[in-house]
């Protein structure tokens, strides 16, 4: 136990005593991450191609699987935790996610709305003639 508490660099694993033990536990962490990620990816491909599921629900299911896999990558590959030494990394990530959601969802919302309100082509042609 150190007497000072630094932030942890993003991507760095928690420091554990004992070099050899640390490496083998690191391999275990990456292997768990790989197994979970492969499972989620395989599920995504199955969900997209099966006819067993209710079709309108499939895109939502795929989005949930992608979010879950993103979480697996963040926790097991990038070693992001909820610990106090990771606060800065998590806050930056949260801000990034906020901007991504605003850009993606906002664009879709505005463009769908514009599409719905667009003048039908035949009306547009009528306008052009005058």
């Amino acid at each position: 136990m150190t007497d000072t508490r630094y932030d942890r660099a993003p991507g760095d694993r928690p420091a554990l005593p004992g070099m050899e033990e640390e490496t083998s536990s690191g391999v275990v962490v990456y292997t768990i991450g790989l197994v979970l990620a492969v499972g989620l990816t395989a599920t995504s491909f199955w969900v997209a191609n099966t006819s067993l599921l209710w079709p309108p629900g499939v895109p939502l299911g795929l989005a949930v699987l992608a979010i879950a896999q993103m979480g697996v990558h963040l926790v097991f590959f990038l070693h992001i935790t909820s610990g106090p030494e990771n606060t800065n990394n998590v806050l930056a990530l949260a801000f990034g996610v906020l901007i991504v959601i605003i850009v993606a969802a906002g664009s879709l919302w505005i463009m769908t709305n514009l599409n719905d309100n667009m003048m039908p082509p035949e009306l547009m042609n009528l306008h052009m003639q005058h």
Partner: protein
Amino acid sequence: MNIAVAIDDVRKDALPSASEAGPATKRIVVAYGFWIFLLSDIVMFSALFAAYAVLVRATAGGPTGAELFNQASVAIETACLLASSFTCGLMSLAVGSRRRTATYVFAGVTFVLGAVFLVLEIREFAGMIAVGATPQRSAFLSAFFTLVGCHGLHVTAGLIWLAVMMAQVEIKGFRPTVERRLLCFALFWHALDIIWVWLFTVVYLMGVRP
């Protein structure tokens, strides 16, 4: 009475907070700066994703995603990138315990898997262009090539970076500057895999649905 104050004192003595511990080490500062860069890179990708999602139906009478995409090839690409992310993690462990041979082996496997991914993607692009599905054909294809091509460019940059880092390990050894660069490379490679998760979900799985 003063119990709360006393508890505060004890906890502070036991564990000073991050800001009281003084300036962070260079490793933390460098990796945090690179983390901010990666997040801004992901924000840029979100704009490309938004453009793709808006334009996915704008095929202008040209070929649609369902006609063009080959899921078997995408599944192999996904497997390659995921496996390379795993071996990149094993390389980070080897770097952490200063095992030079293991570092080279895992870096080599990571490089080969990344290169296989890139070759498959280029073949896919070449096949699409051969049947007339060029970026000029429709807004959908412009958005597709921009989004997927941008990820491909990132992978290319990552491969070049990895090769340069292995040369630096060979020439300079595991000195702190090299270790910091390897940490940043690992962050970059894992972040590319996260972007690919969204890419195959949004473009190749959702995009082919009627």
